[in-house]
């Protein structure tokens, strides 16, 4: 059950005391409380709440904390929760309500403080002749954090909090304030971001570079590679602090994109000079691979638990404990990699190599070719390879061919997404969707296969280090069997999916778009 929440500001009343006086003069209210605390706006590293028009704000006072979740678009309060401690994930709230509301948006991401400011709140109640509260109001002021004793206001506004069954009083109050007293709707979170020079939604995990058809390939590819390097760099601190598992995921995907582009788009840079960077990308991929496998398994753990019963569940918990310990070790190794001289040097040298200026260009034979030509050529070649491998795999199914096909599919996707801005949006999205349809099936086969291998390896490892309880061995076997069944089911779907992918219509689309 959501309630509307109205936030109104008046340009002439920018201080708390002025706004307070005005409200008391307009409404016959009783002041209930005055509080000073800290307001923190929370969001994921990649601004998922902001992108979905949600605002999550946490007000900390001496007596405790109040969490409020709002929808900016339809001005509703979705959740108000008092007495919470610091929350990192939606599941941290005792009754799981926040998690249930935000799970589709936030998924595995942690909440981070995007902005923290001092807040002053004066609360009022408007009552009828029976002393029944018919409306709650608050005058709220947010201040610059660095303004000390002489607080500098960022925003002062009135918040109208309707009571269920008495909404008309809030509507009347709002009308009075807007029609007669020059108040207007405001969004204080945006004012805070603006005042603190925080750019919401500034982080994007996907490559989004604006290219033009006649741009040189060298310039175009440089921009894409640099953007992916920036994405990697932005995620390193989150990896070090182990805030959530998506930091490593975004880091690895950005690295894979660059590695794939360097391999696929030839002759833009001197190939011999690129070899050492390809080795570095390979090193980073290997250094982070096990950690990512552990992250994925542990995050899906509850689902695995649901698939088992009784003693098997207890056995799986023993495995989980072992893997959590292993993850801690891997994480320490990962932090060493992030802090290593080799990684720092890799970032610096690759940037310098890519961004070489006109006086000292580091270019290959096709550097000056228009990017549209190079993009079309690379995508067509990759597509043909994918079709060829797909037909072979359809005719003669084996896991290795599926694995290679999936890798080729990813390479094609990275190319298509990297050069996205060169093509009409609608058609390109169709291509991405067609690819996704195939890749999802390939992913299921490969993931389940990998899962079985990992389970076997972990069982062997555990055997080497400790006595493995009987119920753990049984649980691993049963889970392996479940993965095997899912893999077989996905295998059955493969031929049909590839038929859809390689249909005449889709082939025409590819040929037309990347001609």
């Amino acid at each position, binding site marked *: *059950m959501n309630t509307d929440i109205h936030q109104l500001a008046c340009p002439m009343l920018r201080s708390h005391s002025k706004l307070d006086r005005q409200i008391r003069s307009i409404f016959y209210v009783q002041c209930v409380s005055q509080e000073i605390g800290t307001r923190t706006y929370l969001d994921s590293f990649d601004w998922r709440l902001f992108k979905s028009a949600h605002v999550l704000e946490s007000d900390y006072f001496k007596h405790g904390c109040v969490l409020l979740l709002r929808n900016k678009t339809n001005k509703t309060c979705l959740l108000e929760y008092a*007495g919470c401690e610091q929350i990192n994930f939606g599941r941290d709230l005792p*009754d799981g309500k926040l998690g249930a509301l935000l799970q589709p948006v936030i998924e595995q991401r942690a909440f981070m403080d995007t902005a923290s400011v001092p807040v002053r709140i004066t609360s009022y109640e408007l009552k009828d002749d029976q*002393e*029944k509260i018919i409306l709650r109001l608050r005058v709220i002021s947010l201040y610059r954090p660095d303004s000390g004793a002489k607080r500098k206001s960022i925003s002062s506004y009135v918040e109208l909090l309707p009571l*269920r*069954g008495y909404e008309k009083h809030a509507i009347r109050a709002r009308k009075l304030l807007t029609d007669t007293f020059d108040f207007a709707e405001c969004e204080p979170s945006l004012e805070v971001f603006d005042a603190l020079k925080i750019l919401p939604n500034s982080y994007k995990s996907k490559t989004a570079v604006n290219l033009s058809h006649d741009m040189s390939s060298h310039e175009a590819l440089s921009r894409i590679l640099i953007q992916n390097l920036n994405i990697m760099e932005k995620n390193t601190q989150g990896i070090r602090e182990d805030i959530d598992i998506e930091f490593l995921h975004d880091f690895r995907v950005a690295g894979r994109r660059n590695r794939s582009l360097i391999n696929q788009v030839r002759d833009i840079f001197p190939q011999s000079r690129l070899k050492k960077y390809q080795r570095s990308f390979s090193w980073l991929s290997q250094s982070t691979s096990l950690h990512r496998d552990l992250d994925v398994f542990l995050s899906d753990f509850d689902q695995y638990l649901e698939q088992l019963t009784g003693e098997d569940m207890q056995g799986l918990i023993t495995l989980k404990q072992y893997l959590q310990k292993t993850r801690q070790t891997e994480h320490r190794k990962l932090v060493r990699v992030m802090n290593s001289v080799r990684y720092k040097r890799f970032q610096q040298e690759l940037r310098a190599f890519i961004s070489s200026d006109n006086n000292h260009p580091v270019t290959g034979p096709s550097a000056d070719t228009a990017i549209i030509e190079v993009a079309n050529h690379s995508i067509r070649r990759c597509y043909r390879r994918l079709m060829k491998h797909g037909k072979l795999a359809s005719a003669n199914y084996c896991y290795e061919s599926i694995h290679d096909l999936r890798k080729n599919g990813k390479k094609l996707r990275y190319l298509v997404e990297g050069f996205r801005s060169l093509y009409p949006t609608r058609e390109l999205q169709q291509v991405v969707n067609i690819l996704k349809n195939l890749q999802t099936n390939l992913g299921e086969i490969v993931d389940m296969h990998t899962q079985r291998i990992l389970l076997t390896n972990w069982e062997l490892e555990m055997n080497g280090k400790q006595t493995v309880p009987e119920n753990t061995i049984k649980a691993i076997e049963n889970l392996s069997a479940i993965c095997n069944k899912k893999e077989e089911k996905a295998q059955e779907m493969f031929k049909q999916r590839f038929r859809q992918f390689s249909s005449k219509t889709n082939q025409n689309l590819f040929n037309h778009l990347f001609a």
Partner: protein
Amino acid sequence: MKILATYNIKGGVGKTASAVNLAYCAIQNNLRVLIWDLDPQGAASFYFRVKPKVAGGGFSLIQKRRHICKVIKATNYRNLDLVPADFSYRDMDLILHDRKKSKRRFEKILRQIRDDYDLIIFDCPPSISLVSENIFYCADALLIPTIPTHLSFRAYDQLKQFLKSQKGMDVSTLPFLYMVDRRKKLHVELGKLFSGRYPEALKSTISYSSIVEKMGVYRAPVKVFDQSAFVSRAFDALWNEIWGNVK
């Protein structure tokens, strides 16, 4: 969502006071609570300062002409809402009688707000009627405030017989002693008889207290105007025992 109902065939035994005070205890334990004041007298509505009026009356709720969400009113206490009483509830039996599945109408109505509340408490009128049967079918437990007298025990026995005779009526009964005066020897003896005869009886009791009567003066749950009173703590203990049984 759990559904409780304060119920007794006899009147003036503390149903409304119990409903109001237990609801307040529930919100203090971070539950979202709705009280439905089914008594045409509108005592619970009075305590919460809400006008005992439902647009369209009970008729509109039963006939589905008005969604229950449209009639719910927030009280002065966060997370505690009220479906107000209405004088037309006196005819509720007649309205229900004309409907199909007349004993399950309330179940259907409550489905509309299943996700909005953790607990619903019905404050029932004193009678056995079609309204009561609706409550018996949809409630998880009946909370039965029982004054320690022989007639009260007899009324409870009648209720139990009735519930036993109805097919599919598996609501549990949680009687508890109310308005107990330990200075009276009879109350003490009947208290022992009560717990011996009815194993389902709650151990917590509510003693007679003039503070409860002051609810009419303050128009609020006891804990709002006298947090430290013995009866406030008694309601806390009663609530904990009820919730432990029902959760």
